[in-house]
């Protein structure tokens, strides 16, 4: 896998707090949906000291997009990068998703910036590189407000079904995305893939467990290296062979997607 300086080609702001950064990458790089890359600003070598993990939002030959939400200094400095500057990219890393069960309806559940890995998933499906079975995918997209349904138009333009919720009711159903999910699970057998804030993912896992529906979560665990050498990204996975009843897996190389039923949840 390569690590390289990637010239910033464009920076498209998604007010109030996110941006889509497009960078040039080596032409031959391929990507599986839900893989990610470790990004840093070469100029800020001292702080933030560590690179930050981001899903590859969109992959085209020679270009990658990243959807970056500003939450702190690392995301802030990357989101400020402008054409003419370069960012440092290591990746793609992590295990991608190349197929979903054929006999169940694939439901994507995204919270806020957790939408990022889904664009590549649906694009690869349209290109015939991700095997989904015959049913039209359903995307449930939740955010606090309409602004946090990032880049919604790009998803509604895809040949998939999209249902939205906002906490304040500014768009779609008012309330939590889990309410949409509970309803969708009554419509037939489904397979759930979810990415979003931890509390949302735990709620989604609980809903799926009650409905006996397979559920996978793409975790946003803190990472230092992103390629398996440091053991920072510990994820508690149930394992009866250990006296405590769990072991720690590495989110970066064993994930980032985990079967929800195998995880020891925080609450």
């Amino acid at each position, binding site marked *: *896998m*390569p*690590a390289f300086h990637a010239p910033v080609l464009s920076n498209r702001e998604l007010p109030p707090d996110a941006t889509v950064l497009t960078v040039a990458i080596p032409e031959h790089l391929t990507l599986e949906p839900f893989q990610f890359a*470790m990004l*840093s600003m070469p100029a800020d*070598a*001292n*702080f*933030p*000291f*560590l*690179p930050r993990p981001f899903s590859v939002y969109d992959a085209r030959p020679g270009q990658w997009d990243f959807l970056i939400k500003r939450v702190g200094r690392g995301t802030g400095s990357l989101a400020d990068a402008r054409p003419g500057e370069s960012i*440092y990219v*290591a990746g793609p*890393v992590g295990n991608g998703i190349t197929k979903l069960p054929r006999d169940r309806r694939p439901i994507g559940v995204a919270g806020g910036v957790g939408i990022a890995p889904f664009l590549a998933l649906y694009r690869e499906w349209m290109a015939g590189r991700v095997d989904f079975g015959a049913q039209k995918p359903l995307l449930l997209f939740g955010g606090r407000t309409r602004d946090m349904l990032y880049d919604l138009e790009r998803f509604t333009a895809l040949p998939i079904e999209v249902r939205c919720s906002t906490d304040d009711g500014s768009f779609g159903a008012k309330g939590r995305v889990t309410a949409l999910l509970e309803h969708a699970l009554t419509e037939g057998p489904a397979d759930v893939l979810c990415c979003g804030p931890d509390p949302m993912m735990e709620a989604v896992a609980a809903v799926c467990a009650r409905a006996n529906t397979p559920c996978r979560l793409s975790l946003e*665990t*803190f990472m*230092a*290296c992103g*390629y*398996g*050498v*440091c*053991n*920072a*990204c*510990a994820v508690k996975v149930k394992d009866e062979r*250990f006296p*405590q009843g*769990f*072991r*720690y897996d590495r989110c970066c*190389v064993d994930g980032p997607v985990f079967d929800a039923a195998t995880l020891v949840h925080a609450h």
Partner: protein
Amino acid sequence: MLDVRIGPIELMNPVISASGCYGQALESEAFVDAHVPGALLLKTITLHPRAGNPPPRIVEVAGGILNSIGLPNKGIERWLTETFPKVRGHASRLFLNIAGERTDEWPRIAARIGATPGIDALELNISCPNVEQGGLPFARDPETVARLVRVVKNETPIPLIVKLAPESPDIGGIALAAQENGAIAVSLINTIRAMAIDWRSRKPKLGYGFGGLSGPAVKPVALRLVYEVARRVSIPVIGIGGIATADDVLEFLVAGATAVQVGTAVFRDPRAIQSIVDTLPTLLAEANVGHIRELTGTLRMPGSR
């Protein structure tokens, strides 16, 4: 122009991976061929499997990071039977880092490794806390370290490197104890014990409470300690701490090191060791240094004693 010698071991270049920062197998090969470092040095292996500490295990601080990873590993038995066959023969040299949690575990790990072919050296992580001594590190005094090196040496013919802790009150004495009891080299420094605090929640930022500081912030401390230890011992010194560039490597050599290890830098740049190895010949040529060995211990101290 880069080959160096650590006791009986020839290294193609003096740049070794630091334990705990380059995986337990060939994870680093995702970015750099495992033959590139002079030696591939893997994460500490203990006698029994360990799960490691609760997260968060790493936090950033100015100029570096704190870690409280807690030595997660499969234990020596499973490492040798499951992991080693995949690693053996895939590196220029393979060094294994080991630690005991109790005094009697050290000879048992060493005995299990015995004369296993394909392991070129063992690095003893004596910074590891001794659970019998309420978690005080084995590295606290020369007598303990002398005994430890002797018992390990009794069980294995593989050359030993002793990895020193920066806080040891008598680090020079410990290095001498290692040398007198047959270690082929000492390596330093391990991380510096430290803390990070979130004052609002009144909690430490690391899941374990304390952690070890590494990265550029520790380099000046490491350089001073390498300089001091290299003056006390005649065996090679391996410098560790904050090395991220070829210039950093040469600073450690001038201070007295024969080789170096690169740790934290590979998190930010997975290709750091490759870049360093590629850059060293240019720096040496520019400075008219014929061979990297000529630099070791050439520091000109003002009014040198």
